[in-house]
C-alpha cells in the first residue's frame, strides 16, 4: 500500500490539520515509512482471533442515571478562546 500526495491531502483534511501543498510529498513519504513498518502485521496468522476490546477483563461499572454535577457554566467557559453570553463562540457555520 503506497500513499500518494492525493491520499496525504485527504487524510490531512480528515484530521482537520492544514498541510501546505509543498509539504504534502514529504508527508506522504513519512506515511509510507510508517505504514511500511506496520505492514509486517500481515504476516501474523490471526484466523479465529478476537480483536482485543479491553486489556483487563472487567465489567464496566454502572451508576444510576441521575444528575450528579452541573451549574458550572462559568467554569466550563473559563478557558474558551471566545465565549459570549454563556456560549462558546465560533465563526458563522450556517449561511
Amino acid at each position, binding site marked *: 500500500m503506497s*500513499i500518494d500526495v492525493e*491520499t496525504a491531502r485527504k*487524510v*490531512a*483534511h*480528515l*484530521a*482537520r*490539520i*492544514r*498541510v501546505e501543498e509543498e509539504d504534502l510529498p514529504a*508527508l506522504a513519504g*513519512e*506515511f509510507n*515509512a*510508517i*505504514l511500511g*513498518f*506496520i*505492514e*509486517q*502485521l*500481515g*504476516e*501474523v496468522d*490471526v484466523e479465529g*482471533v*478476537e*480483536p*482485543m*476490546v*479491553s*486489556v*483487563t477483563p*472487567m465489567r*464496566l*461499572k454502572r*451508576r444510576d442515571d441521575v444528575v450528579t454535577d452541573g451549574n*458550572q457554566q462559568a*467554569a*466550563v467557559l*473559563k*478557558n*474558551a*478562546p*471566545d465565549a459570549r453570553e454563556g456560549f*462558546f463562540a*465560533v*465563526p*458563522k*457555520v450556517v449561511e
Partner: protein
Amino acid sequence: MMTDLTKLTIAGARDALRKGEVTAAELTQSYLSAIDEAGALNAFVHHTPEIAEAQAKAADARIKAGDAPDMCGIPLGIKDLFCTKGVPSQAASRILDGFRPEYESTVTTQLFDDGAVMLGKLNMDEFAMGSSNETSTYGNAVNPWRRGNDDTALTPGGSSGGSAAAVAADLCLAATGTDTGGSIRQPAAFVGITGLKPTYGRVSRWGIVAFASSLDQAGPMTKDVRDAAIMLRSMAGHDMKDSTSADLPVPDFEAALTGDIRGKKIGIPREYRMEGMPDEIEALWQQGQEMLRDAGAEIVDITLPHTKYALPTYYVIAPAEASSNLARYDGVRFGHRAKLAQGEGVTEMYEKTRAEGFGAEVKRRVMVGTYVLSAGFYDAYYNRARKVRSLIKKDFEDVFAQGVDAILTPATPSAAFELGKEVSDPVEMYLNDVFTVTVNLAGLPGIAVPTGLDRAGLPLGLQLIGRPWEEGDLLNCAYSLERAAGFVAKPARWW
C-alpha cells in the same frame, strides 16, 4: 537540621518528618532552591512555590497532630500531562497554551489529600508522544548525566523526561509520570532512577490528558523501589470517574518488600535478545539474571513469540486512539485558536488551529491514526492490530500459566543518546520502546530499576514485568534486584 535535605528518599523524609528532625517547610525550601539553580536542565516548566509553601505548612500541622499519611509533606514534581487546578497544564503542547484547568486530576487529588507538596509542573514530550523529550513546546529537558567529561547534552528520555531529570538531579523527592509505550520506564533507565508502570486500571486516568486510552497508565518515578511502593499506594485505587479503573483493594505495597524471592520463577524471554544489541546491555542482563539466581530465584527460559509484532501493533493502536482523543483540540473550548482571515469559516478555524497548535510528531501520529481508522483500512490495519494485540497478551498469559512469577528484560536498547541527533526516519525513534511497549499492550505492571553504568559512565537499567494486579510481588523482586545491584551512582553536578 540535616545537611542536605535533597539527598533524602521518600521513606527517609517520612521518618525524619515524623521524628521532628525536619519540617515539610524546610524540605520544601531546599527543593525550591535546588529547582532555581537547575534552570539548565529545563525540567520544571511551571513553578508553583506559593502552592508548595501552603501545602508544606498544612503538612507540618498534620504531622504535628500525629497520624499523617506516608506522603505527607513530601515535595513532588508533577508531569505537565496531569490537570492541576488553576495551574498551567498543557501536555507540553502549544495548542493548550494558557489552559488552566478548573479541576484537579484524581491522582494529584489523592496525593494532595495525603499531604504531598507540589513544587511545579514537569517537562515532557508533546502529548506524551516521543522518547527523547524533544517534541516539547518548552524545549528539550536535559539529562543531568554526561559521558565523563564530555559536555554533549544527552536526552533524559521520554515522554516523562522532565520527571526523570528532576528526580535524578534531586530537584524533588519523586515525580509523577505516565506510560503509554515506555514513557516512565525508558526515561527512568536513562537517568538511573526507578520507574513503575502499574497494571492498566490500577491508577485512575481521570484528569490526565489522554493520549491512547487503552494503553495510558500513570505511575511513580522515584529514587528507589521502596519509594515507588509508598507513592503507588497513594496514587492507586478505584475512581468512579474512570470506568476502566479497577475496583480492587489497594494493598500496602511497602509491606511486600521482604527481599525474599526464594523459589520465585523468573522468565528470560528469548525474543528480547535483539540483533545488534550492545554487549553492555547483554552483559547487564546476564548480571541481573545471576543476581536474582543468587537471591534464590529460579531462572527459566521462556518464549513470547509475538514480541516482534509489538511495535507495529502499537504504532497502529496508539495513533488510532490519539487521533480520536486529540479531536477535542479544535480551538473552541480551551487553548489556542488561530486567527482567521476575512471569509474563513469554522473548518478553516479547525485546520489552522490544529496546524499551528500541534508539533510535527503529534500531527504525524494523528494523521496516521486517522488513516488506519478511515473507511476501507479499518479492518486491514486497526482490527488486525487489535487481533495481534490479543495474541501478544496471550503470550504473557501462557508464560504466567506455566508458573513464571516475573520476567526480566533490559529496559532500553541503549544508554541515553544525544539531544538533537538527526532522525530522518520516524520509525528509528520508535525502536526505543522495543522492550517496554509489550507491557502496555498486555496491560501488565512493569518496573525499570537501575543496575549498572556503561563504559561512558551512563546509567543502564533492567525491567521486571509482573502478573496483573501483583505490583507488590513485582516490587519485591525489584527490591531484591536493587539490593543486589547496589546502584548508588549520581550524576556529577554541572548545572
